[in-house]
């Protein structure tokens, strides 16, 4: 392992681009540094989705986030999917492409869910080999995201963070670090989320996800349908302390509110990041005399 930083420059603070906000984003051009789009939603010939994607992509940096790579499946890699992904990437020119460290399909049947893997040396080898194949095909490193989970396997011989780091190292890929998923899984499995965060390899974490969840008392489900809760904000601060500046964004997939509500949450992320990372605050101060960053955050993101 070397200490070379391999991640791309800090993009700032972004949001998941959702259909309900297409028109607002295009006409109002809100002060959001970048947007993440769900790759599969745009693997269509055209129409409104592609129109907005292209128009918004002319104004904002985009990253592509997939849900059907099924990197942990024992099915062969779906080359048709990868071709469609590559074609979309050629058109969108995203800053990066991500998916999840999980499996979603077997025998060609797609569960459309992010199903957990056993955390073993064998699975590390299996997943890493497939990631290398994907990266060779796409001609770029991909990011893999830790998923929320509700069960773990007797076969698992390592913690999730060890598994994630091991795959990233063996495949030479990057990590999309979902802080909410760590909170959800920590509650469901009874581990200490700060242990997870402190074990992450900062060289490989290129993006952070933030989101809300549903708390049922005995367990927590990753629903992306509510505001980010205080314990997740605390973990976000802890993650930035450990990782340094990482491009961060908020996902909301259900109960999608007015765009301004998400902007307020994003302002919270900015404020916390600026409080946590003095160097980010220093950069920020060069461009701002007061208030929260807007255009200047974009400039900051491109530094």
């Amino acid at each position, binding site marked *: 392992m070397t200490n070379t930083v391999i991640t791309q420059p800090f993009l700032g603070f972004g949001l998941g681009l959702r259909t309900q906000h297409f028109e607002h984003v295009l006409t109002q051009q809100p002060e959001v540094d970048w947007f993440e789009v769900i790759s*599969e*939603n745009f*693997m*269509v*010939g*055209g*129409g*409104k*989705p*592609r*129109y907005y994607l292209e128009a918004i992509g002319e104004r904002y940096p985009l990253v592509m986030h997939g849900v*059907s790579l099924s990197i942990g*499946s*024992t099915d062969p890699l*779906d080359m048709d*999917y990868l071709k*469609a992904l590559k074609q979309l990437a050629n058109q969108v020119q995203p800053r990066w492409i991500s998916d999840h460290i999980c*499996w979603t*399909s*077997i*025998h*060609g*049947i*797609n*569960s*459309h*869910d992010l*199903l957990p*893997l*056993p955390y*073993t040396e*064998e*699975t590390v*080898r*299996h997943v890493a080999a497939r990631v290398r194949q994907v990266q060779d095909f796409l001609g770029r490193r991909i990011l893999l995201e830790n998923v929320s989970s*509700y*069960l*773990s*396997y*007797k*076969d*698992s011989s390592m913690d999730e963070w060890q598994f994630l780091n091991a795959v990233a190292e063996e495949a030479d890929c990057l990590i999309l670090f979902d802080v909410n998923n760590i909170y959800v899984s920590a509650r*469901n*499995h*009874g581990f200490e989320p700060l242990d997870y965060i402190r074990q992450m390899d900062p060289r490989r974490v290129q993006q952070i996800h933030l989101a809300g969840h549903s708390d049922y008392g*005995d*367990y927590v*489900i990753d629903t992306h349908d509510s505001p980010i809760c205080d314990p997740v904000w605390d973990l976000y601060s802890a993650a930035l302390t450990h990782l340094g500046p990482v491009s961060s964004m908020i996902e909301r997939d259900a109960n999608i509110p007015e765009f301004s509500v998400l902007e307020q949450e994003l302002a919270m992320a900015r404020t916390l990041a600026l409080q946590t990372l003095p160097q980010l605050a220093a950069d920020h101060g060069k461009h701002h005399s007061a208030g929260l960053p807007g255009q200047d955050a974009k400039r900051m993101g491109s530094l």
Partner: protein
Amino acid sequence: MSKDQQQADKGRLHQLQQDFMAYLLQGEPGPALADRLKRQIRDQGGISLDTRIGIYANAYRVRLTEVLETDHPNLALYLGDDLWNTLTSAFIQARPSQFRSLRDFGDALPDFLRQHPQFNQDPILADIAAFERRLLNAFDAPEQPRAAFEQLQGLAPALWPGCRLRFHPSVQLFKCHSNAVESWQALKQGQAPAAADYSAQRAWLLWRGESRLTEFISLAPYQLALLEGFLAGEDFATQCAAMLAYVDADQAPVTVLQSLQAWFSMGLIARLDPGRQG
């Protein structure tokens, strides 16, 4: 590690994934499968193994049901909660997704309704589902520039008879023998639909206009014949001749021309293929 060991490990992972997926697909898995899967799951205390797996099984069904509800809102209203639940449960059970995107999951719903012994008693149901699929197809069909009527006007008169049309990819015809679209419209406007009516064939044209709105209009028999001919690649002269079944000989070219003018203004035409000069 030997190759044999690697194969065995992969086989173990494969078996686990197979069992897990079978559990999700079966809805009410038998005890043998449930036991086999549970034997592989760690008992961590807190919630039970059944609850842990149940979270995934429930999410699988909820997600797919929500997609069908989103794509078929007025079919759901037409059926009412109980029948809609029966339909979605049966469809999810019978047609697991082989798609990368949930956008395509309901593609087989119209056929499923036509074949299902309970639902095929009411053909209007499959018609409403098929119409809603057509709306989705028009929504995200590929984009193409549209041609203007002036292009046709600028064409040398000698080229008109052999002129053919290339339509925008969003253009679709929908034919049915029920009042499915009228019922769909009533439900969309919050009104109760009329009783199912199978007395006549209806035809509809769907397309996505230049403003990116999905639109549809009903077609008179002559309009349907005209569109079907041009969509099949027939030329202007052939379609004028086809209009003789509907209008007088002197009216046929005018009928075709007026229709074409409307189609251009609606954004239906992507391109003209001029015929060869005789």
